[in-house]
């Protein structure tokens, strides 16, 4: 039996996901707001406002509280000498092996929120696929990037 990868994402990633989800939910909140504004000009029934607000709050609960937590719990990665293994997904569990010698390049990316928490997301590209580790501490991310770059230099493309 193959060992499962055991490194979780940085704990702060959870915070970042929650912030992003909160912002998205504010966007959803615009829908009832628009409805209220529209109600001033056109005759509209009152009850959909409450329904919409409740729906937004339910979505918000799932997106902000429950789902990121499950997702974070399920996320595992492991970096071996010769390959990277990822395991993630709440409903559909995905497990990926990416051999170092197949890696074409590694990017680290930081949005403003990730930067605020000192995190990076690492994207690993092969010639055919792209994989992302969404939240690693900056130091670790850079280390990983350099490590893979080094291995890529040594790697013999014909194995």
């Amino acid at each position, binding site marked *: 039996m*193959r060992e499962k990868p055991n490194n979780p994402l940085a*704990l702060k990633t959870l915070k970042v996901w929650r912030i992003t989800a909160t912002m998205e939910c504010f966007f959803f909140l615009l829908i009832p707001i628009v409805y209220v504004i529209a109600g001033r000009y056109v005759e509209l029934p009152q009850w959909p406002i409450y329904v919409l607000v409740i729906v937004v709050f339910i979505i918000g609960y799932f997106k902000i509280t429950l789902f990121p937590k499950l997702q974070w719990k399920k996320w595992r990665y492991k970096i071996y000498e010769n390959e990277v293994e990822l395991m993630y997904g709440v409903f559909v569990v995905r497990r990926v092996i990416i051999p170092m010698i197949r890696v074409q390049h590694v990017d680290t990316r930081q949005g403003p929120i990730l930067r605020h928490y000192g995190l990076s997301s690492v994207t690993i590209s092969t010639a055919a696929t792209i994989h992302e580790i969404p939240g690693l501490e900056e130091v670790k991310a850079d280390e990983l990037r350099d490590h893979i770059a080094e291995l890529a230099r040594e790697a013999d493309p014909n194995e």
Partner: protein
Amino acid sequence: MSDWKRQHSAAIFIGFLSSIKEMLFTMLAVLIFGQSSQFGGGWFYTIFFALILVFSLANGIIKWATFKYKLQENELQIKHGLIFRKSRYIRKERIQSIDINAKLLQRLFGLVELRIETAGGGAEPEFRLIALRREEANLIKTELLKRQAIDIEGSIDESAEDLKDIPASDEKFTDFTWELSKQRLVIAAITSSGIGIAATFVAAITSQVQQFIPEAMYERVIGWVIHSSVLLIGFWIVFILLIGWIISLISTLLKYGMFKIDKRDDEIHISRGVIEQRQLTLSAKRITAVRLVQNIIRQPFGFVSVYVESAGGGRKDEDLSTILIPICKKGEVNQLLKEVLPDFVVEKAYEPLPAKSVRRYIIRLIIPSVFVATLLVYFFNWGWITIIIPLLAGAYGYWQYSSAGIGIDGNNLLLKSRAISLTEVILPRKRIQAMKSTQSLFQRLDDLCTIHVSIITSIVGKTFSLRHISKDQRDHQFSWYSYEEEKENIKGESKG
């Protein structure tokens, strides 16, 4: 060494006609859908089509007039463009392959098209000279390839290592030749799976016929069809299928007639076609996967067609994969592959999927079929006959399950599955870019997974999947693929 030359003046017409050909579908769509709308009138169409024709012709002339090429010592120089002038230098070392095609349009003028494929993933990895006399094309081809061969002999570039046992002569000898026999061609045409597509096409055209027949007659015909029996509708379906079959028969004959493979060192030269003669050069080293496909008509007779996925060199018009052998007996595959692609010769040791997964295969097909059956009962009162649909779907699911298999032979991963045709994929370990397994909630109940294997093909990656394998099988594939000798943990500090 030579001056700037233009292509043969027939390039104007070839360019013109091929741009018309490209726009044919747009024009047909405008014609068909436009007529039923109220928009515009006869004038609109006249002007619309006249503009297209004039524009295409002008475009053809300008392209021909501005397109010039020059064969130089080490390279082929090309300049083109009226407003934006582009020049391009195709250096001979960068040339991967040169193919001479005679497509329908070229054949009208007795000309050929020269297609040069260069290495590297630039914006345009291939380049075409669309109208050349055959002698001229041959001259360019031999000139560019000749110097390349000489150069390889003397230099130590990266590919030299693998090519060093090439004889120094310009003429590369052929290691292996295979031709598709006439008899096989006929079998291929008869059993071609193009029926489905062709029949859809025929059906689509028949449905548009109403545009062109008088309304009274149309109404009479429709009334007749509606009142006629199921038998007659059945007759129509058979008729459409028959026409579809004839179309696919002829197109297969024309497409794969005179099919020939030449293997020279690492290069596989494929030439084919009766009216449109095409050449294609593939490098054996860039083949990333081999697919053996048996459609349901061919399977009982033991016939199989072989496709290859190639990193570069594939054709856009062939679904990103290229046919290597249009048809052969199943037992002959390994013999042929041994000559053409020895790395892909495998012992077909498939492990069946676990018994648990039969449920998943059956349920997956039954659910939509129950839905369809319900609709039929609700809207058409079809009654008891609809029970057949889920039953058939279930049986088909069982068939898919029993056809599927997974296996490893040395350095190759084998996946076998059936959508409609039975497909076997041979994937060498070193060509696999990443291996992934997914497990949905339903699969978790039975401890099953789906495996996804990604490789490079000419444009983007391609992923082959096999549904509902057992977890043990998954672990087996993973450990086969894994590049970790021992499960030592170098960098993965387990910190939270």
